[in-house]
């Protein structure tokens, strides 16, 4: 945690208690505490963006998502640790936040994932029942996987980004991290909706409704090629479980430079979003040494290359949607690796380049995905499975994850050190 919002929490809790006693119950989130990633604006409370140069930054307004959760009666209990600037400077190690590296509650010597580190860790430790994280590329699914909790990346535009730090305005999404997939649906319903302060929000209404059906699962061909042994074993076990609730068949996306497209968009938009920051040399004040020089290389991306990536993205979105049409969800490991040691550089752990096609397509095309725990490795570190759906199909993928969790017990396991 970066800031415990004690005064605000007590005020909101008393208000909720009074309303509930008076019979004015607002729904399942009424009176429920939560934590928000520290890139959300919260009136009068610091929003550090995880970065030392911004640690005293205070906004005079609440982010739309904070307002919406307030209207649902939720109680903001804390602002949560995150990788500095949502990892946008290219960090290569867990120690890339002014609050230090964030541990997974499953092993304090291992990393919580990022960039929504505290959002995953706080739920797994039982500090709050749900949190809000953000994802530009992997920042919800990574901590969900490393911390063994459910994490939902909604469709781009489902949730207003107003009041959240912008890293890449056409890739950034806000989503919940919870103990179960079912909880993710409940929280998303409270967060979602059109917001005139974020022109990219959809006017499509979202109401969480879990459905029972026989699901059609597609398994991305070669999805475990670069995965650790335990990740592969647990994923294969999960596929057997999925056969109890639907059909499972291998699928492929057509060849296309998915990663290059999404990476180019992220780099160009981040270069612009942090232009003044970069020009002023403020990166020198960041924690991770690699973040000191991280923002400079991308300042040379040509406008025509960014625009080409945006044009290719439109083709990519259509190709991906067509490939996914026969399925309710594409499944893959949430992460190909378990939480790494907290003091180790990422490149020392994985050899070679591990492709992240699911992440590139999912984030580049703005598709929803939910990650839930699906086992442990021999060290007791959680592994995960993700269900990625077509645009606006949150209910389908959540329903599939709920059905999966109905037949498994992984979500009922909690770290011993944090279990009463």
């Amino acid at each position, binding site marked *: 945690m970066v800031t415990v919002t004690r005064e605000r929490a007590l005020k909101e809790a008393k208000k909720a208690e009074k309303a509930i006693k008076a019979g004015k119950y607002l729904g399942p989130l009424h009176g429920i505490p939560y934590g928000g990633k520290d890139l959300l604006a919260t009136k009068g409370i610091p929003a550090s963006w995880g970065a030392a140069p911004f640690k005293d930054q205070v906004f005079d307004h609440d982010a739309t998502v904070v307002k919406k959760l307030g209207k649902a009666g939720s109680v903001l209990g804390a602002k949560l640790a995150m990788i500095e600037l949502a990892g946008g400077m290219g960090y290569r190690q867990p120690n890339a936040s002014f609050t230090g590296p964030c541990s997974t509650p499953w092993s304090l010597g291992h990393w919580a994932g990022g960039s929504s580190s505290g959002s995953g860790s706080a739920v797994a430790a039982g500090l709050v029942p749900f949190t809000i994280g953000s994802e530009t590329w992997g920042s919800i699914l990574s901590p969900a996987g490393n911390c063994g909790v459910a994490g939902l990346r909604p469709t781009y535009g489902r949730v207003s980004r107003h009041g959240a730090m912008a890293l890449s305005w056409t890739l950034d999404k806000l989503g919940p991290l919870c103990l179960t997939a079912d909880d993710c649906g409940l929280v998303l319903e409270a967060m979602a909706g059109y917001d005139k302060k974020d022109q990219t929000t959809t006017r499509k209404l979202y109401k969480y409704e879990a459905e029972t059906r026989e699901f059609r699962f597609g398994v991305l061909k070669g999805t475990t090629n670069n995965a650790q042994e335990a990740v592969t074993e647990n994923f294969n076990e999960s596929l057997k479980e999925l056969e109890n609730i639907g059909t499972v068949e291998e699928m492929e996306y057509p060849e296309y430079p998915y990663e290059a497209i999404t990476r180019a968009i992220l780099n160009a938009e981040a270069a612009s979003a942090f232009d003044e920051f970069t020009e002023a040399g403020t990166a020198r004040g960041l924690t991770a040494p690699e973040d000191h020089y991280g923002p400079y290389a*991308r300042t040379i991306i040509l406008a025509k290359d960014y625009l080409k990536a945006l044009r290719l*993205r*439109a083709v990519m979105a259509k190709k991906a949607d067509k490939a996914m049409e026969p399925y309710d969800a594409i499944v893959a490991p949430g992460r190909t690796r378990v939480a790494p040691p907290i003091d180790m550089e990422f490149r020392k752990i994985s050899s070679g380049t591990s492709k992240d096609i699911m992440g590139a397509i999912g984030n580049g095309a703005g598709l929803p995905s939910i990650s839930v725990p699906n086992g442990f490795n021999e060290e007791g570190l959680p592994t995960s499975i993700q269900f990625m759906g077509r645009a606006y199909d949150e209910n389908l993928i959540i329903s599939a994850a709920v059905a999966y969790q109905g037949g498994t017990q992984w979500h009922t396991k909690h770290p011993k050190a944090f279990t009463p």
Partner: protein
Amino acid sequence: MKDSNTEAETLFKLVEQKYGDKLTEEELEEVKKGVERIVEASMELRKVKLENGDEPFSIFKPYRGDEE
């Protein structure tokens, strides 16, 4: 790859000229690798053919304050 190298070198010189005073020699070496990766990725994108009418998904809308 020669084109890629030439372009990366040229663009790196621009970064060096503009931000060199903010970075150490070691950091500049890392920036150089970063520029090379970006140029390689750009080359990959440039190889893909698009039709003249293939446009990005656009959200721009003309603005009038009294019509919000």
